[in-house]
């Protein structure tokens, strides 16, 4: 009898646990549902404030409008270019630094590693960096969006830790056969490191896709706006100028609510498309990174 009772009690706790976790998952997901519901709802439904969970009076008008804007396509293109170029540059430099500094007996290794790690704790700050970027002629060019932040020290540490864990004997054998270090890197180390390269590549790509402050800081010409910066000016542009006062007619304001959410959806979809890979690799990356090298 008492055993039975105990079992029942545990079940109640388990049910409660599942219920609360489901609720938390719902809270994490709901804002996205809200975005989709708004972006797909008809004008009058949004106006009357009926939209909460699902689209009412299904309408693709907002998407048609947003995808008809050349500004969005231009911004999308800029962001794709920056993401691809930035990820490529970041990966190359991170691989070079991690590979070079994973050689235990490299003369000067400690000094060079120290110089890199020190930048984690101290930096010039906003204005001195801004002045340097301006000084080397990157201001208002797309290069400013990835060259000044090409290497992330954390990613460097993760990759160096991985390179160190590779079996030394393979490399040594190749060295004895007369292969240069460059050959060893491309023929032996890189093929063995594809998972970590994918992980760190994704780290960088998501960072570039989502970053907006660098564009705010360095880009002047609206035709070079990135997606996030364009999104910001579409979402908050008017609000910033007239400090929240609702000067427009209510109708246009509500129309833009659908439009705004459609824009949010369009700029988030690429992230959602790669999300399954993101999740798989990122979790691994965090684990490797938490083992300090």
């Amino acid at each position, binding site marked *: 009898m008492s055993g039975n009772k105990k079992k029942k009690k545990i079940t109640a706790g388990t049910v409660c646990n599942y219920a609360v976790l489901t609720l938390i998952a719902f809270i994490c997901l709901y804002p996205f549902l809200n975005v989709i519901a708004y972006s797909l709802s008809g004008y009058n439904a949004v106006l009357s404030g009926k939209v909460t969970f699902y689209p009412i009076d299904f309408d693709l008008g907002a998407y048609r409008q947003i995808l008809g804007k050349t500004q969005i396509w231009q911004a999308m293109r800029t962001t794709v270019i920056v993401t691809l170029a930035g990820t490529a540059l970041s990966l190359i430099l991170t691989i070079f630094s991690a590979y070079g500094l994973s050689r235990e007996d490299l003369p000067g290794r400690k000094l060079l590693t120290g110089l890199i790690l020190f930048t984690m704790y101290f930096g010039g*700050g906003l204005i001195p960096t801004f002045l340097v970027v301006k000084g080397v002629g990157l201001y208002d060019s797309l290069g400013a969006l990835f060259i000044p932040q090409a290497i992330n020290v954390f990613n460097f540490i993760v990759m160096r830790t991985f390179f160190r864990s590779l079996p030394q004997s393979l490399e040594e054998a190749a060295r004895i056969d007369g292969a240069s270090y460059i050959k060893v890197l491309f023929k032996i180390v890189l093929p063995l490191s594809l998972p970590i390269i994918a992980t760190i590549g994704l780290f960088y790509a998501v960072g570039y896709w989502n970053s907006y402050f660098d564009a705010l800081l360095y880009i002047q010409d609206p035709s070079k706006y990135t997606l996030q910066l364009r999104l910001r000016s579409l979402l908050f542009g008017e609000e910033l100028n007239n400090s929240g006062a609702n000067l427009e007619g209510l109708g246009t304001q509500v129309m833009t*609510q659908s439009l705004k959410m459609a824009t949010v959806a369009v700029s988030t979809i690429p992230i959602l498309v790669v999300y399954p890979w993101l999740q798989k690799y990122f979790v691994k990356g965090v684990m490797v990174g938490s083992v300090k090298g």
Partner: protein
Amino acid sequence: MQNKGKRKSMQHTLVKMWNYKWIYLMLLPVMAYYVVFKYIPMYGVTIAFKDYNVFKGVLGSPWCGLEVFQKIFKNHNFWQAIRNTMVLNLLTLLVSFPLTIIVSLMLNEVMSAKFKKITQSVLYLPHFISWVVVAGIATNLFSQQGGTVNQILSSAGISPIPFLSDKGWWIFTYVLCNVWKEIGWGTIIYLAALTGVDESLYEAAYLDGATKFQRLIYITIPSIKSVIVTMLILQISKMMTIGLDAPLLLGNKKVMGVSEVISTYTYRLGIESAKYSDSTAIGLFQSVINITILFAADKFAKAIGEDGII
């Protein structure tokens, strides 16, 4: 004799360096990057001690000692930014830190692998969304006019809440958005630690008749204690830093009194008002405080027998 040995070892080093020539060639662009974009700006902090003049540049501007610091320390806005940074960080920590651990423990109790996987996937998702998008969604949900939450409240007969335009409510919304974005992601490290807990301890406790709650208190939590302490120290060492995105994007003129943090203040002062020296001085002040806290936290961690964080 000793000299000869020295010379020999130096020769040895030079030979080794020659062998590594390709490696050095690879490191060249890396080091060039660090010098140009990290170390030259570090020298640039000297403009915090200069009367910066755009035409004379960083090197040519005249020194002015601690004048800039004296000026900013007298400024009310500076102290306000410091206070806001600490208040927002502290409140976020107070809510998110225990909540992250609780959610991790709950996820750890889940037996169904499928349910666990789906829940985790959903919980990690907000981490990958940009702050611009989060702020856009938050505005749609919480604005006083036409915000979804206020519409639901008003249909329940509750008057609209100024989530984004009242200072107190804005802090609430800020903390909420931060917790929403990062809580799932924060569980990863605890879940990893939880998988490392020795199963036999649970079995022994079960045979001794320990309840589920007792097992949690006496086995699970002590087993991940060191991770909890390390994470807490790590979070505390970041008390004076807030990324600029969240406060800048969620904030507006009405709540500037609580949303202006050090990073947004240096941005507005430096870029919008072009007060380069003032902005740099504040950044430098913040860096020095950060390093001090970091070293203190590291010392503390080691003193209580945990791993250091540096």
